[in-house]
């Protein structure tokens, strides 16, 4: 629930134009086609809403990474949420954009239409409130998101433990960002010349978390804010690193991000959660990239509470090449499913689920070209 509000005053337009000129000059100096990945879904959104891509040099492309937590939630997690929504006296509380994500055969949206108890909430605290108001029901919050949303969920679990709310639990599907980026760069060849690192996540984890990308994998990293000017500034900083032959982690979003991050938020995450392996839609299993609820808070772990319910089992569609699209080595046109079995209204992979994902964007632009 955080999107850049895209307002530019006139003086900002002048500054923006200067920055764009800088980007063109540095790109010319770099003398090669370049691909930068914006890892975070909110960056994808901001780039989409501001039309940023259309302002960049043609051979400098922005590709969307795995940073939309909703899009990368795997089938089996959705299937589990759907199964829970079908249990008697149970309410599933979720952030709104989760309800559209397809499971194996249905979605929470369809389950709700068929009488399943699915409530859209705006915060985990709303879900806790729902549990307090419905003491005869089990309220299960779908814990989705990266390090940005995790501290709030951790706090909610602690709060329900302290205040004795016994009918509240969390189905934990949280994922961590650096592990996913590590998986991207080590899962095979990549064609990414720089990372625009997520702003909000970095407020929590700090920019030091990306040091391994710059040092070990030699990919320049810049932590960017969410205003269009931030993103253009970060692109300029990435280009400068490339032109100067460096790879380091820099912070464009310095008004909010420090190298160490928010230590209090990191502490509460560690107190309530511990790392685990996680399935990513379109990418596969990434070791250590997920979070699960620690044993001390087992009473709030929906995974344990609902461990005996039957869940539709399913693997990802083997023809889906989202993983390769996310690594920048394939485009949607290389995918056999693209625009056939996989469309914005019937998405298969992560890149089509979000309206701003790479495949969804290609789909919309293909329509523009009349393809």
């Amino acid at each position, binding site marked *: *629930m*955080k*999107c*850049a*509000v*895209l*307002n*530019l005053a006139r003086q900002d*337009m002048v500054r*923006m*134009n200067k920055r764009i000129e800088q980007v063109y000059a540095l790109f010319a100096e770099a003398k090669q086609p370049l691909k930068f990945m914006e890892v*975070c*879904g*909110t960056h994808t*959104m901001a780039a*989409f*809403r*501001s*039309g*940023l*891509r*259309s*302002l960049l040099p043609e051979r400098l492309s922005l590709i969307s990474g795995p*940073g*939309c*937590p*909703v899009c990368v939630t795997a089938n089996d997690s959705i299937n589990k949420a759907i199964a829970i929504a079908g249990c008697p006296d149970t309410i599933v509380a979720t*952030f*709104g*954009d989760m*309800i*559209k994500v397809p499971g194996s055969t249905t979605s929470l*949206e369809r389950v709700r239409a068929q009488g399943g108890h699915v409530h*859209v909430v*705006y915060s985990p605290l709303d879900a806790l409130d729902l549990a307090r108001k419905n003491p005869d029901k089990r309220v299960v919050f779908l814990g*989705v*998101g990266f390090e940005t*949303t995790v501290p709030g969920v951790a706090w909610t679990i602690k709060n329900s433990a302290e205040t004795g709310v016994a009918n509240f639990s969390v189905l934990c599907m949280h994922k961590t960002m650096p592990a996913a980026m590590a998986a991207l760069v080590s899962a095979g060849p990549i064609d990414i010349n720089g990372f625009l690192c997520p702003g909000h996540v970095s407020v929590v984890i700090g920019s030091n978390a990306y040091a391994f990308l710059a040092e070990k994998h030699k990919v320049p990293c810049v932590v960017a804010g969410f205003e*269009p000017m931030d993103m253009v500034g970060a692109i300029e900083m990435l280009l400068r690193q490339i032109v100067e032959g460096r790879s380091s982690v820099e912070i464009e979003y310095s008004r909010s991000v420090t190298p160490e991050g928010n230590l209090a938020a990191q502490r509460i995450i560690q107190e309530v959660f511990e790392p685990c392996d996680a399935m990513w839609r379109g990418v596969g299993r990434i070791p250590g990239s997920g979070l699960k609820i620690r044993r001390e808070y087992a009473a709030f772990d929906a995974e344990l509470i609902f461990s005996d319910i039957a869940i539709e089992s399913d693997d990802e569609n083997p023809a889906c090449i989202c993983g390769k699209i996310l690594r920048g080595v394939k485009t949607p046109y290389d995918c056999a499913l693209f625009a056939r079995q996989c469309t*914005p*209204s019937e998405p298969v992979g992560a890149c089509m689920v*979000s*309206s701003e994902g790479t495949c969804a964007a290609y789909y*919309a*632009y293909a*329509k*523009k070209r009349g393809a």
Partner: protein
Amino acid sequence: MKNDIITLAHGGGGIRTRNLIKELVLAHLGNPILNQLDDSAVVSFESPDLAFTTDSYVVNPLFFPGGDIGKLCMCGTINDLVMQGAIPKYIGLGLIIEEGFAIADLDKIFGSIAAVSRETGVLVVTGDTKVVEKGRGNGLYINTSGIGVRRPGVSAGISNAKPGNVVIVTGTIGDHGIAVIGKRQGLSFESDLESDVASLDSLISLLFNELVASINVLHDPTRGGVAAGVCDIAESSNVGIELVESHLPIKKAVKGACGLLGFDPLNVANEGKAIVVCSADAAERAISILRTHTLGKNARIIGSVVPDHPGMVLLKTAMGGERIVEVPAGEELPRIC
């Protein structure tokens, strides 16, 4: 026994039904045609060219800042007729009331219906009430039908946009959707944002009186917002449309709430706005006419119709970029990313 809530007996067709109709419906809405209480209303028109529409109102909550379901159902039906160049005349109301509904609330809602009827001269001439068991309704649903007489010389239609035309919106966008969702979710915004729900009859009359031949399309951007409205026009007319982000009139509070919830103001519903597509030479005059009316004081040119990319709407963004505007896929959902 107190008679303060609706019971199944109010829908049973007996004494209680009659009393409800007399004490509530006729007290608020009575007119020579409705007072007949016959099986159907008999009406006559001065022209054979009629516009006829139906709509259902399921808004939740029933009372929201700036209006209620009563005002909404009247204005929504009237606006559907107005968008076809018709002078709205008569409305029929079908009410489905949930058992236990407070009669005081029903009284308020009929008061709102009567107020719109008085302001616009549109008469409610027929109606029906049914009561359903507790748990089978959202308090109250209203279905309407409306009929109006088409003005002579009107050629406006959704498939009539032509390259070179100008796209106008008659005021700020997204007010209704944000006011309703704010009330529904208990989100407290610092400003007193209200729904824009209003009858557009008098505003659009001003345009038609002077520029009837220049107006190619009139469309009300309700569900799906201005994005769905302009996409409908682009598709039906098989033309491209280019909108300019910096020209979109959006209240600060709406922009802020959209930023927080991850909504695009272009996708948020309006209930008192029209999209007007007119010839370029009439555009400035259209704007100055609209601005003489309180409902049109924020009217602006927001874009133009182009021969390129037929069926598609592009937005020139505030930072000078470009993006495609699409019909929203489904309900507008708060995002976490």
